[in-house]
């Protein structure tokens, strides 16, 4: 008994929809959790109030994002059972334990220490509190480790045998550390840091544009731009290494990304833009740069890249989609690099906090981290099709046999409504919080020391180091 194509399509849409929404929140949480740990560490080290104020401010936004990440993630794990029970029954013996490890080593750590991080200021000492923050940040990274291991295994499976119609794990080390795992892990973790840095930078830019010049705003703008300057080039290098790895293990994905149909000998050119046409096996309106494809993907002048035509039709991923999602990702990355470099140039004469055009640019770039992340995610996931476990299990065999169009259609509709309503409002609140900005005590802005007047501060007036006489940054 096979499920109808419509049900399969709807199940795929549902997964794509829920995973796309979900991934936004963990990306923000991973990046912000580390940022929070850095802020608190700096506060403990230097005693400067500005770090603590920034910590409070971003921990609120973190909390909203984290909450949404948790609940949207729960949906994902149950979807494997409801819509994809074919996959669960066949490959659950590998992906299940990895997920279980994620829950045991990461989710509990985050959830267990989140309470102390958010509400424990008056209940534990500063060191214990910092420890809690570190645990939350570590938890988000451990979570990244397991989920990327699982996803990478589905992309480049190894360490298993198929016995009696289902996958039996043989070598767990090989499964966890599969060939594409290190590349994906680094690429994803850096992406999360970039997402957070872009949001922090854009938030600061917004307040700079509105005339705020206090220490907290300047500090966040500066920190975000330093972060970008360091991380974006590393990310570009990591992405390049990931590309070489993908060419080795998933050549069809590379061909689809490049919109490349024929295997060219003596050097492959790169389609800068174009419109890959799956029906007619050609890329329309292609603007080509000779040898550039070989140069990027093989790091040689005339390296050979397999064209899509060398794969059977039913094994080809949709080139039209991944061609463009990939270019959106790369385009965003280049713009980010431009932003970071311009930031460095502007620092020279302290023009960073005055150049309005640059602040507008930084504000516009706020969502670029998320856009690049989603585009990259689409590239790698759509590029894996038609396989759910690459070369082992096709997506159409992964869907639940009992799935009906009514069920999956109804649940998709419900999810779309609930997600837009709930997460839409949640995102709105996150933006609102950001627009409000950190609550620096007035004296810091005005240079007097009239005591705690900022909103929300009286609640923490027994904080040992937040005396108004404390020196303010810079």
């Amino acid at each position, binding site marked *: 008994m096979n499920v109808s194509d419509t049900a399969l399509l709807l199940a795929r849409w549902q997964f794509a929809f829920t995973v796309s929404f979900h991934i936004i929140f963990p990306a923000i949480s991973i990046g912000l959790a580390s940022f929070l740990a850095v802020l608190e560490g700096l506060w403990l080290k230097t005693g400067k109030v500005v770090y603590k104020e920034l910590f409070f401010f971003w921990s609120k936004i973190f909390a909203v994002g984290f909450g949404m990440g948790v609940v949207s993630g729960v949906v994902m*794990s149950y979807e494997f059972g409801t819509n994809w029970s074919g996959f669960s029954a066949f490959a659950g013996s590998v992906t299940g334990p990895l997920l279980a490890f994620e829950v045991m080593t990461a*989710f509990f750590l985050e959830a267990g220490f989140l309470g102390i991080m958010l509400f424990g200021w008056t209940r534990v000492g500063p060191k214990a509190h910092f420890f809690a923050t570190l645990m939350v940040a570590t938890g988000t990274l451990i979570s990244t480790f397991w989920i990327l291991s699982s996803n990478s295994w589905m992309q480049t499976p190894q360490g298993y045998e198929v016995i009696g119609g289902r996958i039996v794990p043989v070598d767990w080390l090989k499964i966890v550390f599969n060939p594409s795992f290190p590349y994906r892990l680094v690429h994803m973790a850096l992406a999360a840091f970039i997402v957070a840095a872009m949001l922090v930078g854009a938030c600061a830019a917004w307040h700079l544009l509105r005339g705020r010049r206090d220490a907290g705003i300047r500090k966040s703008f500066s920190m975000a731009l330093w972060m970008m300057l360091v991380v974006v080039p590393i990310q570009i290098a990591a992405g390049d290494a990931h590309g070489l790895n993908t060419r080795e293990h998933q050549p069809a994905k590379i061909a689809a990304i490049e919109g490349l149909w024929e295997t060219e000998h003596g050097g492959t050119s790169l389609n800068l833009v174009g419109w890959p046409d799956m029906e007619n096996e050609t890329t329309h309106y292609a603007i080509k740069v000779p040898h550039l494809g070989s140069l990027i993907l093989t790091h040689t002048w005339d390296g050979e890249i397999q064209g899509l035509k060398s794969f059977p039709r039913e094994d080809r991923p949709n080139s039209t989609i991944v061609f463009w999602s990939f270019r959106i990702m790369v385009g965003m990355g280049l713009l980010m690099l431009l932003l970071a470099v311009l930031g460095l140039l502007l620092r020279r004469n302290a023009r960073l906090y005055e150049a309005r055009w640059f602040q507008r640019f930084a504000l516009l770039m706020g969502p670029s981290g998320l856009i690049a992340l989603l585009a990259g995610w689409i590239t790698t996931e759509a590029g894996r099709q038609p396989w759910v476990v690459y070369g082992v299990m096709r997506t159409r065999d992964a869907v639940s046999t009992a799935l009906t169009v009514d069920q999956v259609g109804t*649940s998709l509709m419900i999810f779309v409504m609930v997600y837009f309503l709930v997460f839409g409002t949640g995102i709105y609140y996150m933006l609102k919080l950001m627009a409000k900005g950190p609550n620096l005590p007035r004296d810091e802005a005005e240079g007097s020391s009239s005591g705690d007047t900022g909103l929300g501060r009286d609640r923490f007036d027994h904080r040992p180091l937040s005396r108004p006489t404390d020196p303010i940054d810079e």
Partner: protein
Amino acid sequence: MHIDLPVIWAAIIGFGVFLYVMLDGFDLGIGLIFPFFDREGEREVMLNTVAPVWDGNETWMVLGGACLYAVFPVAYSVLLPATYLPIIAMLCGLIFRGVAFEIRAKARRTQHLWDLAFIAGSGVATFAQGVILGSLLQGIDVRDGKFVGGPFDWFSPFNLFTGIGLLLTYATLGCGWLLMKTEGELQRRMAVLMRPLTLCLAVTVGIVSVWTLLGQPGVAARWLSMPNLLFFLPVPVLVLACVVGILVAVKRGAERLPFLLTLAIVFLGYSGLLISIFPNIIPPSLDIWAASAPRSSQVFTLVGAAIVIPIILTYTVLAYWVFRGKVRQGDEGYH
């Protein structure tokens, strides 16, 4: 020596699910009795009693699901399609509720809407869990390790009733928790609410038990045959004793005992469920051995569980210890 991994895993998952019911039970319960409390600051105090821990509580459900997926993938791929719509409803309920937790305190103008989201989310999630529980107790059609029933098999009077039963269970747990964590007028009103809740819960537990025995000859045979009857008889007797204990304790103004006795009732009911279905993981025909993942998966995950779960328990207890004591109005709470 041969180690029967599926049995060990059934015990771990059983333990995890029980912790979930116990922990998320009382924080979902707070959402269920939310409507009765709307005086100045009451709701804030109620939320603040669980704000630092609810996230961890809910993680036990994720653990149960993930471990079921990891070590009993067949059961997972049967149970979830069989209870498709209740699962979706539960997830949506948890979404509304989880986001309401974060946003309620920050929203001024729309606070009443987030209260509603919190109440409805808790209600829908709990009811759906009860329906899933009922479906499990009633049995699911399985052939060759696959679910072969219809999309609305879960929709039966019995399952809807277990949904109501779970609503009452969680509400009583929530009420008991707040009796312990609050003081003054709010605590007094909790004590007033605790009595009818406990009585309704007792009646519901009785009806579910009898209904199960009447509807499931297999279960009835297990409970009512000798000498099982003697072994299992303490279960219903202890439930009755707990109910009486709660009523007396509330009357005497005890603060912790009602909550602990409610937990005892939950534990007894849960062990009753396990007695009824073990060693099946999906009654009536799928047992834990047939539902198992390959041995290598079970071993790998067990190594992790053996190391990590004690650590988790340690810092979970630590987190509860850090936030021990009464919660008062105006206490530092949600941002």
